[in-house]
């Protein structure tokens, strides 16, 4: 009874925060984005079909839409539709931001979104690795290390043999690191955060060390031709969407499939139920005959494999080589995506998309001349993420047993 009241008070407060969030977006749109006249041209296809938005009018219209949204949210809320409304609102806000930034010029929207989807791969796969571990009750801080080590061995393996072998080697590297995490955190019951961080450091140190000591003197160990994008028949012909989602490398399709499969497996199979039970209340799961230890071992290994493939995306999916610290903290972004998505594969995927969009926008936006220092434009994606997380996503509840070693009795 009491707890019910408490939750509803929290929810009310959250709904109010979201309402104020929309109001904030309205203020920014009306006060800032409506200031620049001029048409913003967005190239929608590579051949040049483009959408031209009158930046100022567009901002006025959407500013008013945001006010309406805020009023509706504050007065009665959107109930089950609230997350849909939120994602649409975010998309519109990003669009009006872009039309403001590009007013009087034009740029390739489709190219940027294609880049976003491609960049989401390591974040998505890393986040899935995180979910697999944490849903079964082991905190995985080592995503960054698994990505980085996978990128290194993937580059070397693919340079020496072929791309398939390189990807498999990257996967096995992830599995190996996950095995270390498993042995220390499950068997020796060492603090999971400490082991995870030690693995991150180990991966950073050993890959930098080896690239300096081995790859620099032997450049042919580190040069390969990355995979080419594949156009999916039929789907890639869909205007706009097809170009963005279905003219991509095999890594992108793998990450889509992995998200779909994991969502199904986590909520529709016996394994999924057991995993969630082991992460929430392992004692109960154990009493009912689930081998929690074995389950955690297995999930960690799968997580390592997925994250390892995510690491292979750098050398094999894009740049064709390994560089020191090439992951640049993407593993921590993946961790943020896990929390952003509340430990749900689809949620984490959308989180990964948001962070990847931030990156793609950042790479594009430095060139625009808006009268505002470019550093603030570069900062904007991170500020938006901060506002979205603080205002809209709010508190997220982790699997209850994540972080605690399990006693078998």
């Amino acid at each position, binding site marked *: 009874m009491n707890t019910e009241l408490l939750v509803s008070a929290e929810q009310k407060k959250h709904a109010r925060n979201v309402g104020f969030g929309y109001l904030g977006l309205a203020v920014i749109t009306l006060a800032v984005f409506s200031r620049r006249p001029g048409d913003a041209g967005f190239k929608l296809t590579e051949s040049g079909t483009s959408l031209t938005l009158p930046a100022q009018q567009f901002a006025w219209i959407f500013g008013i839409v945001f006010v309406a949204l805020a009023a509706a949210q504050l007065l009665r809320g959107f109930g089950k539709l609230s997350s849909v409304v939120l994602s649409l609102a975010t998309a519109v806000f990003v669009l009006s931001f872009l039309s403001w930034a590009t007013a009087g010029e034009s740029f390739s929207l489709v190219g940027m979104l294609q880049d976003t989807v491609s960049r989401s791969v390591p974040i998505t796969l890393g986040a899935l690795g995180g979910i697999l571990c944490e849903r079964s009750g082991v*905190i995985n801080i080592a995503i960054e290390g698994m990505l980085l080590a996978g990128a290194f061995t993937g580059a070397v393996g693919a340079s020496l043999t072929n791309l398939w072998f390189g990807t498999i080697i990257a996967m096995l590297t992830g599995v190996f690191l996950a095995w270390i995490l498993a042995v220390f955190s499950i068997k020796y019951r060492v603090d999971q955060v400490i082991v995870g961080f030690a693995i991150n450091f180990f991966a950073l140190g050993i890959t930098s060390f080896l690239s300096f000591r081995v790859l620099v003197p032997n450049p042919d160990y580190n040069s390969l031709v990355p995979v080419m994008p594949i156009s999916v028949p039929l789907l890639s012909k869909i205007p706009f969407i097809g170009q963005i989602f279905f003219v991509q490398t095999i890594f992108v399709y793998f990450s889509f499939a992995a998200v779909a499969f994991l969502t199904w497996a986590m909520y529709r199979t016996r394994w999924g139920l057991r995993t969630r039970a082991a992460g929430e209340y392992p004692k109960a799961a154990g009493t009912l005959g689930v081998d929690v230890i074995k389950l955690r071992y297995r999930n960690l290994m799968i997580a390592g494999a997925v994250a390892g493939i995510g690491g292979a995306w750098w050398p094999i999916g894009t740049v064709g080589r390994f560089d020191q610290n090439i992951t640049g903290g993407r593993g921590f972004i993946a961790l943020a995506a896990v929390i952003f998505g509340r430990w749900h594969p689809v949620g984490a995927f959308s989180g990964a998309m948001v962070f990847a969009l931030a990156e793609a926008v950042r790479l594009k936006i430095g060139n625009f001349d808006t009268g505002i220092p470019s550093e603030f434009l570069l900062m904007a994606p991170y500020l938006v993420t901060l506002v979205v997380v603080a205002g809209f996503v709010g508190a997220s509840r982790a699997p209850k047993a994540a972080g605690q070693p399990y006693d078998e009795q």
Partner: protein
Amino acid sequence: MKDLLKSLRYTLLALVASLLVGAIIIVITDVDALKSGDFGKAFSTVFNAYKSLFQGSFWGVRSISNTIAGTTPLLLSGLAVSIAFKGGLFNIGATGQMLAGGMTSLWVGFAFDGPGWLQVPLAVAAGAIGGAIFGGIAGLLKARTGAHEVITTIMLNSIASFLVLWLLKTTLFQREGRPDPISKPISEASRLPRLFGFLDGRVDLVAHAGFIVALLATLFYWWLLKRTTVGFELRATGLNSDAAKYAGMKTKSLMVIAMLFAGGFAGMAGATEVLGTYGYASTSLAGNIGFDAIAVALLGQSSPIGTLVSALLFGALQAGGRSMQANTDVPVDLIIVLRALIVMFVAAPLLVKAMFRVKSQVVSQGQTFRGWGG
């Protein structure tokens, strides 16, 4: 005291184990030696590398000075991560907080023209305040909206780095006549005095009084945790925030307080780098220190003395690693591997015990960070 000696002994054994593994790594990555089967050369590489690692960290005044200079920011930012851990928060944002503190102390350092005894404390305090405000944002966001600090601190790191890039190009901060983002130098009076200034003014002795600031901060951290109500409540919240709430503690305010102090410590790390090491600010002011700080805190179990010891160890490795890279062909990145191994071996006393066949009870460690919280 007995516990302390015991854990020091394990740290020492872990260090030896890490150096052994490091030696194996050096040998098996010596591609030329392996191809020619010249193992004697590989082993002499190991010997020379470790010799210069040791000499570069402890042998002579200059090495000790380098170790102290390396330890200073690691200790302060390590405290920033430690105090957050104690309050049940995971502070990945030491980098951003360092940048914020570095910039505020820089401003005091060049904008005012006071005497040294006033300028230095004022600038360090400004750094602490700047960092505290920046760290406090993450705490406030978590307390008010529940936004997870792992996300917010990562985002704030990026925001801080762009903010610094912008500030360094404004006329207020940018050095006259320079097109690149580099700040005006601080006034001579604002520089933290050099620790070994009495030795005929040798310029290669870079250690500065920031180390004393760091030691005082460690003492303050100990006092706060062990002797004040806030510290007690902070620890209680970190151990079990539901229980702390039930006992009437204001857990949300404590979150903000923890992040304020965390930011303050990291801000002082930025301040000592600006006021002591560089004398100006650039975008690479914080480097990887915020990241290394997490390892310092984890190795030190977030305790005051533990953080001090592990910061010293990491600082020594860093100083030694540079001289190792300069004198042999072993890259400095080996240090990162050694750090990882040390953290791992210290965290897994059972493993070290098995390796060295030690027969004694191990001090129980407990969890550093109790899950992701709610």
